[in-house]
């Protein structure tokens, strides 16, 4: 057992942070929010160039040959920086394409030429498309199977509102044939997706903790930094505990799912529950600690809060985890 970051893992994090702070810092996120998609295009080509979309895919299939844990490290940074764009869907779609025999599609996805959005199954063929605006493929993920469809397979698309202005939502019906299919027995796409969502949530929990702590150290009221007041200090402490638990559990979940461990289902469910709670509570507290500033559009706190809501609906939210947790066998 080893819970320290390897040199490779450190480089991955450094590289991801480098790209994001370079081409998608928060000012650029706000440009995307305002409708300018060019920062996204720039980021996309860099991300593809650095192999983000195939990080956890074997080299034979066109990937970089790392594991789910490395993908989790990447997506933790994506969460931490509220990075926009269908990164998760494209990563999973490339995986499905590569393993489902659609090598050409996989290559295009991996190379950043095309993008994929997610389709959350609702009832029958009706799905909720999440982040699927201006994408070329749709990944429909069921518990037992994941199928990749061309975007044209989604008909009767109706735009839906949503809290996160950076994540499009639509209702649609999927018809036609998939270009690739992978069964969960071969590769648990839903479980991987959920772990990566948890990783993004853990990143949000950390980012909001950091935002709050920084503000608490600098904002002065009543003659001292507000972080000196227990009401703020203790809230920051609770945020730190929540973020640390989420981070540790996401690591355990990523490693367990990757290893097909006996308790992988429980570990992934636990990560989801703990990370959702941490992200939502920390985002909420960040607004409250920033007080008046916290509710303004200019403060980044709401971007995190809204992203949490956008992520919660992917691959089964907290309530959906109950079964895996209640019926878990004790692990090792």
């Amino acid at each position, binding site marked *: 057992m080893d819970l320290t970051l390897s040199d490779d893992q450190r480089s991955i994090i450094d590289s991801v942070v480098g790209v994001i702070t370079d081409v998608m810092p928060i000012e650029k996120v706000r440009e995307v929010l305002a409708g300018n998609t060019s920062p996204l295009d720039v980021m996309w080509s860099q991300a593809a160039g650095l192999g983000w979309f195939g990080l956890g895919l074997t080299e034979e299939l066109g990937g970089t040959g790392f594991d789910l844990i490395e993908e989790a490290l990447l997506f933790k940074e994506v969460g931490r920086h509220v990075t926009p764009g269908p990164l998760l869907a494209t990563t999973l779609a490339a995986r499905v394409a590569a393993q489902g025999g659609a090598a050409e599609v996989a290559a295009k996805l991996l190379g950043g030429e095309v993008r994929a959005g997610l389709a959350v199954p609702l009832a029958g063929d009706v799905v909720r498309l999440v982040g699927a605006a201006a994408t070329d493929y749709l990944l429909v993920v069921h518990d037992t199977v994941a199928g990749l469809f061309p975007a044209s397979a989604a008909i009767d698309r109706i735009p*839906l*509102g*949503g*809290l*996160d*202005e950076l994540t499009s*939502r639509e209702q649609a019906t999927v018809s036609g044939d998939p270009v690739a299919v992978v069964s969960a027995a071969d590769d648990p796409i839903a479980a991987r997706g959920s772990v990566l969502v948890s990783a993004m949530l853990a990143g949000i929990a950390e980012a909001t903790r950091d935002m709050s702590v920084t503000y608490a150290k600098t904002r*002065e*009221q*009543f*003659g001292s930094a507000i972080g000196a*007041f227990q*009401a*703020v200090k203790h809230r920051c402490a609770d945020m730190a505990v929540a973020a640390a638990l989420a981070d540790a559990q996401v690591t355990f979940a990523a490693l367990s799912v990757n290893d097909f461990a006996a308790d992988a289902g429980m570990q992934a469910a636990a990560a989801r529950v703990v990370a959702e709670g941490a992200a939502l509570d920390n985002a*909420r507290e960040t*607004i*409250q600690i920033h*007080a*008046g500033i*916290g*509710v*303004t*559009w*200019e*403060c980044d*706190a*709401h971007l995190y*809060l809204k992203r949490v*809501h*956008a992520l*919660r*609906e992917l691959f*089964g*939210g907290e*309530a*959906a985890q109950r079964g895996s947790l209640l019926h878990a066998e004790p692990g090792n």
Partner: protein
Amino acid sequence: MDLRLSPEDVDFRQAARDWIRENYPTEPRPNDGPAMREFDLEWQRRQWAGGWAGVSWPVEYQGRGLPVLHQLIWLEECARIGAPDIDSRFVAVNHAGPTLIANGTQAQKAFHLPKILRGEVLWCQGFSEPQAGSDLASLRTVGVIDGDELVVTGQKLWTSFADLADYQELLIRTDPSAPRHKGLTWVICDMRLPGITIRPIKTLDGLSHFCEVFYDEVRIPLTTVVGEVNEGWRVAMSTLSFERGTAFTHGQVQLAAIVDRLIEIAGERPAYGRSKRGIDDDEIAGRLATARAEIAALRALTYTNALRNQSASQPGPEGSMVKLFYTELRQRLMRLAMEIVGPGSTLRGITHATWDEDYLFSYTETIAGGTSDIQRNIIGERVLGLPR
């Protein structure tokens, strides 16, 4: 003790209900701008014309002079039927009016009070500043006496409706050498004076609930000082106490309406991302039941505070209990609403166009008018007598 309404109370309720039903504006309220101002003032004018303005204002100032119970009944009836919330009229009718009645000169009262009740003016509040949020006493906007005028320079923040208001309750520092709470002055600022610049602040829900106001050597007559120069802290505290009394009655009725609606929705469909009907999910049902219990208790506490304190010259710090619990409950309830309806719901919101907006707005409520931490300080220190 007796919960039953007297025949006079019952008559008042019935009369209020009948009049409101006949007269309240049923057309949609404009979202913002002059159209909203005109809509709100027109509703105030209609109340004045109908003899319903200032239910508990003293008769000598053209109010009805009725007990606080009637004020509560009036507010509940307005809210239940769906009449507009007091909203943009709040500072004028519930802050500035009572403050002037308690602290104003005869001339100030004679000039301003009728305009307020008759729906001729809106007011806004000018207390908070960028560096003086929770710590109000650290405000820096200065007023220098020059002849019979105060020359005001500085900046205010979180001023609701500054862009629509005629007058402002403006708190400024007039003696920079005095200790923090001393040396402040409360003046009536005409919002059309030269040197005032107003900038709306966009909030997290994409709307603008607040403004920044900049003052560049704004000349305000000394005759508009309320209380005495350098006595502003005392006057301001009385104003804040008014806010924390019955100010949330309309909101409490809205809370009840939100729970009613959520129970209805939960009876029709599964909670967001779950499989059973919301009402059949013990966790959702339990949280809805608890919310209803808490709303009932909040109403009981509001009535108890109001009826027991009606002889007091100004509301006590107990109002902070209502403010704290109401705003936290509202936010908690809106988080539950998100669990039930989900983000991006096409269902109509209760106080905003969508549930998303209702939800996001609830984050401002535990902050505006004094954060929950500040309320807890007030309760701890002024109600319980704990040391600072």
